[in-house]
């Protein structure tokens, strides 16, 4: 028994990602067609040569036909998966395992979300029928629980916490301003960020990720076949997923300054990938910055900063584009946007660009060859966490 991983057995050989944003003129079908088409053309792969498909979407369709009908796929296996905001990563993870198992030669992982048809500005969806006792609070509110808890535990003055959060939003907007596919492509001043209207707790509007429409896709094959499709494949080094038991919302032992699901999934992925010191070994990380306090906590959970120190590292610029470990160089959920089912694959798309030297104005100049994606779904205390490590060279 154990999580042995599939290090260097699967390669990404093609990727596509639509611009994220308010696509009033595009349906989920359009976004899937656009991202799948780009993934194929990125490596000259014919869609009909893809043997099996995975589709991640949380709210934009049920069943495999959500993908097979718009793409007119003839009787191929299509598996629709859902795992909260980590849905796109779940699509990728399952597709990887299908290749690693030897069952298929060439597969595609897709993800899509069409959020802007709801008629509401934030995330709005119906839960299954229930007894009405679950706290009906918004996503920013559950994540805002982190901020007073972190401030209390590490004696960070609340105004300094606000500066830390503001720095993260500012940094991710700076990065997004260098990304032509991002939902928000302009720099936002720290003054504007920290004086924006409050949404929940101390979170202002700029502390929240963009709610958007978008699609992304990746084509995978066995590592030994990768060079048939591209001379610059990415190799899957580690894949980990942890679904929590919900102990944090049940037990006073949880203090809202960490995600146990993240530390567990990160440890698993690092072990599979042979990473000992992520901060010095990774070229970059795409992390689940759904709200700015989340990114603070993730820096510690992913081992990028010691416990209680992430807030100082953030202010010191460690995770800026020109810092020791750039985090969310594409703008992250914050400014690239967060179409749920597509986000996990969007993170991999940035790794694909950066490790292949195709990131343009935001290209990170580094000799490091590995990158991390981290995708979270649920709420502090009760969530799913996905961590992947990919690299441009086989070990």
């Amino acid at each position, binding site marked *: 028994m154990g999580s042995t991983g599939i290090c260097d057995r699967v390669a990404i050989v093609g990727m596509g990602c639509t611009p994220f944003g308010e696509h009033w003129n595009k349906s989920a079908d359009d976004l899937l067609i656009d991202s799948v088409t780009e993934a194929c053309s990125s490596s000259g792969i014919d869609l009909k040569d893809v043997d099996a498909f995975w589709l991640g979407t949380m709210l934009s369709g049920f069943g495999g036909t959500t993908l097979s009908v718009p793409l007119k796929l003839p009787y191929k296996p299509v598996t629709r998966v859902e795992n909260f905001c980590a849905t796109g990563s779940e699509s990728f993870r399952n597709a990887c395992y299908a290749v690693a198992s030897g069952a298929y030669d060439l597969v595609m992982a897709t993800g899509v979300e069409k959020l802007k048809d709801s008629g509401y*500005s934030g995330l709005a969806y119906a839960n299954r029928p229930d*007894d*009405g006792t679950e*706290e009906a609070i*918004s996503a920013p509110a559950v994540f805002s629980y982190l901020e*007073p808890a972190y401030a209390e535990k590490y004696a960070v003055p609340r105004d300094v916490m606000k500066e830390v959060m503001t720095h993260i939003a500012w940094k991710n907007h700076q990065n997004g301003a260098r990304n032509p596919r991002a939902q928000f492509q302009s720099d936002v001043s720290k003054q504007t960020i920290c004086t924006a209207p409050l949404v929940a*707790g101390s979170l202002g509007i700029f502390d929240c990720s963009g709610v958007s429409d978008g699609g992304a896709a990746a084509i995978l094959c066995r590592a030994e076949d990768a060079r048939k499709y591209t001379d610059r494949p990415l190799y899957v080094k580690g894949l980990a997923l942890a679904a929590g038991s*919900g102990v944090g919302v049940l037990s006073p032992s949880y203090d809202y300054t960490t995600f146990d699901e993240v530390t567990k999934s990160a440890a698993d992925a690092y072990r599979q990938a042979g990473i000992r010191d992520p901060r010095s070994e990774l070229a970059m990380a795409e992390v689940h910055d759904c709200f700015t306090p989340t990114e603070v906590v993730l820096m510690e959970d992913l081992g990028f900063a010691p416990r209680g120190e992430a807030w100082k590292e953030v202010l010191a610029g460690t995770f800026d584009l020109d810092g020791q470990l750039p985090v969310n160089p594409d703008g992250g959920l914050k400014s690239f946007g967060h179409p749920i089912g597509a986000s996990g694959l969007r993170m991999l798309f940035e790794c694909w660009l950066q490790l292949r030297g195709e990131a343009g104005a935001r290209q990170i100049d580094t000799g490091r060859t590995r990158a991390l994606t981290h995708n979270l779904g649920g709420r502090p205390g009760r969530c799913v966490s996905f961590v992947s490590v990919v690299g441009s060279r086989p070990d």
Partner: protein
Amino acid sequence: MSLVGYGAYVPYWRLTDTSIRAVLGSSGGKGTRAVAAFDEDATTMGVEAAREALATAPENFVPEALYFVTTSPAYIDKTNATAIHAALGLPQHVAAYDFGGASRSFCGVVDLVRASNQTAIVIASDMRTGLPGSADEATGGDGASCFLMGSPDDSVVEVVASTSVTDEFLDRWRVPGDDASAVWEDRFGESAYKPLGRAAFTDALKKAGVGVDDVDHLAVTGLHSRAVRAFKTWSGVRPESQAEDLTSRIGNSGTAAQGISLAHILDSAEPGEIIVTVALADGADATVMRVTERVASVRARRPRTVSRLVDGPHGQLSYGSFLTWRGRLNREPPRRPKPASPAAGPALRRKEWKYGLAASRCANCGTRHLPAARICIQCHASDHMLVERVADERATVATYTVDRLAYSPSPPLIAAMIDYDGGGRAGTEIADAGPDDIAIGTRVEMTFRRLYTAENGVHNYFWKARPIREANK
């Protein structure tokens, strides 16, 4: 059966006549009224009063029935007493019935229970208002009271005599479905009540063998305030023996007013003292009681006195919020989907949680789970749980938020993760509080509330936490 315990509830919020006048101009007097919050109704206030009363119950008190009296029911056809029954965690074999319609109903129910040999919880709860600018709006009040009726051996007061007189005349009325009452000319009602009140009072005192000067406490209640005032003067009871009039501070809470008034008297009455209550409603009900020795021990168990409820910490409400909360101001709703109705099946399956706020505690390792879980999160023992009510336990805020995005009938929604003193954690909404009333470490207690009413008319009842404002937290 005799009165063996009692409780009262007055909501946290207050509306002053001055704030009504600031909006409407000439309307209103000089008083203040209590206002049920947007998440309260007759049912939830009834639960609060009953919890206060049950805290005073004799050890051997086992209720056989629950009677709920209101003129402002949250539902008709469906029994409201069942939600109270469930919120109090009463067993299925305890009967639960609604009474109401007329504000007089309370006197009748108490008389019936007194004459029966069935122990009972009798709750009166009302939300009273009227058209904007009306006297009913300004002088009405929201509140609840509860009598525990049990063995005469445990009685707090013994009833010496009572008299009820009835007459048919047009004082006040409301057609079902209307949201405000109408009244005939004030002076007509006053003159109609005069002989009725006198007849009941005189007869009850005569039967009891008690003179007017022997009366230590006189409580007169009724929705006709002129008639009430006139009767007090006429009664001849010494001014110092007239019960303190609370209506200028909390308003007139209709069916609940008599119970609140008696509770207020009992909070300070001495054994042997004579209490007379007179209720003027479509007739008159006069009751002569003598306070027993047990009043002191019952009083010692009271969580909050009526004085505390009336004059303790409270929130000032703007007239705009009042009108909004009562549905009289059609405000722009939050731009969020309206929350879904609680579904019947899940609500039934989890009624011990939803209504009784019952947790489960692992019989193996002692870990508490809210809501009840089948598998222990700590030791993973399966189906090895003991059910535990946590509604009457206090808790501490672990972390919190002010949610300006979520749907709420009265935004912003304040929520917190709270850790119960007896173990276990749950997420909860915070009631009767503003953003400045909450911090990590704030002490809270649980209160039964109506979270919202779904579009199909179903009220979503569940518990919230409210900051403890007493010195002893």
